[in-house]
């Protein structure tokens, strides 16, 4: 019968602990991917990693509709629609948040979900 504990066992424990630390490292970087998607007429025309944005800038995915992008957030800044609900939605900065300019058929949404699979409103 084998012994309860041998020198090699230390190596096993050490290896597992090191492996566990290695798997943990990506977690420190992971939270910094916030991907925003811009849809025009139902198709994705632009994907932006909001955390990698250094300087704020503006996009015009469709004539008359302006979208402003800053580090960690995105919003509608101008639209030709009458109600301007898209602009009133304000800044989107969390996963799953969406704003839409219905008359222009432009949708901005941040990929992924925090704790919810779908929102009811």
């Amino acid at each position, binding site marked *: 019968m084998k012994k309860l504990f041998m020198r090699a066992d230390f190596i096993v424990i050490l290896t597992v602990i090191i492996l566990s630390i290695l798997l943990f490292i990506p977690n420190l970087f992971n939270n910094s991917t916030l991907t925003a998607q811009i849809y025009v007429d139902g198709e994705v025309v632009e994907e932006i990693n909001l955390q990698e944005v250094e300087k704020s800038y503006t996009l015009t995915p469709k004539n008359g509709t302006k979208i402003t992008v800053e580090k960690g957030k995105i919003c509608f800044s101008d639209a030709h629609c009458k109600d301007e609900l898209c602009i009133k939605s304000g800044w989107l900065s969390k996963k799953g*948040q969406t704003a839409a300019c219905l008359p222009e058929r432009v949708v901005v949404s941040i990929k992924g979900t925090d*704790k919810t*699979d779908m929102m*009811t409103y």
Partner: protein
Amino acid sequence: MGDTSLENTNGKKQVNKKALISVLVCVVMVLGVVLADFVKGRSEYSSTAIAMGTVVNIRLFGSDGEETAEAVENNINETEKALLSWREKNSDIERINASAGTTVSVSTETIDVIGKALDVSKNSGGVFDITVGKVTRLWDFGGDNQRLPSDNEISEALESVNYSSVKITDTTVITAEGQSLDLGAVGKGAACDRLKLLLSSTNTESAVISVGGSLLLYGDRSFNIGIVNPENDKEAMGTLKLSDTCVSTSGNYEKFFVEGDKTYHHILDATTGYPADSRLSSITVVCESGTLSDALSTACYILGYNDSLALLQKYDAEAVFVFKDKTVRITDGLKDDFTRTDESFVVAK
């Protein structure tokens, strides 16, 4: 004798081992098939579309995601254009309104929706009423002519509001002269009901689809549904763990305008013609039928907490009530499925 018994038992040992191994192989094969089926049912296809004048979020689990998503979008458009929109020329509802006072033949699907909506109209004591068309058109919430109508205009329009004047058969509808049907309050839920039928003819194992905030949950998979915080209309204040059902929310934050020092929201009390005076900021109803969940969420918002309970029970529906003072009340069937995510809301025991 010793020899033969050795031979026998050796043979037996072989058979035992073989039996075990073959059982093992069979079970592994079965597990393999189950795994393949499982993985197939978990591949997700998501897309966002615009239909029925709103944002549609589609999450499908199964195969043929792309084709099914397109079929979903077409189906919703069809629901709007062919059946329910009072704005679309030649839709069922438009034809009924154009020939108010005479019998009109419409599709059985439209009859089904009208039937359910009439039922809720009756059981809600008329605060929810599908014949409220003339009044809603005065206010025109979200439209180009959105405004605050005068008291006279409203009382005049109210005269045509009377759900009991609507008679339906299996294939026909007749409304009273001058009456106008508006199914806007149940359109998205009805779209969800039609989508459920559509999905059953596809290779979709499960799905969650949002038609402007009215949800269809299809299949065995359970989903975490977020109830939007009425204060910011963006983040969730709590989640409901649900499967295979429909969810609708009515809230005073969706469509409204401010005039003078008053805020006018779009949920009209059909007995007064004015936005309902409610202690609720929103109510989320869970019911097997989307048409019913839509209708009930509107009716119960107007009725308020106490008067809603019996109505909900009648349709085997459950609800989460969010009050203006940020307290939350939940019907018994849903209490265990709700998780608060925003600490500023208080769930009553």
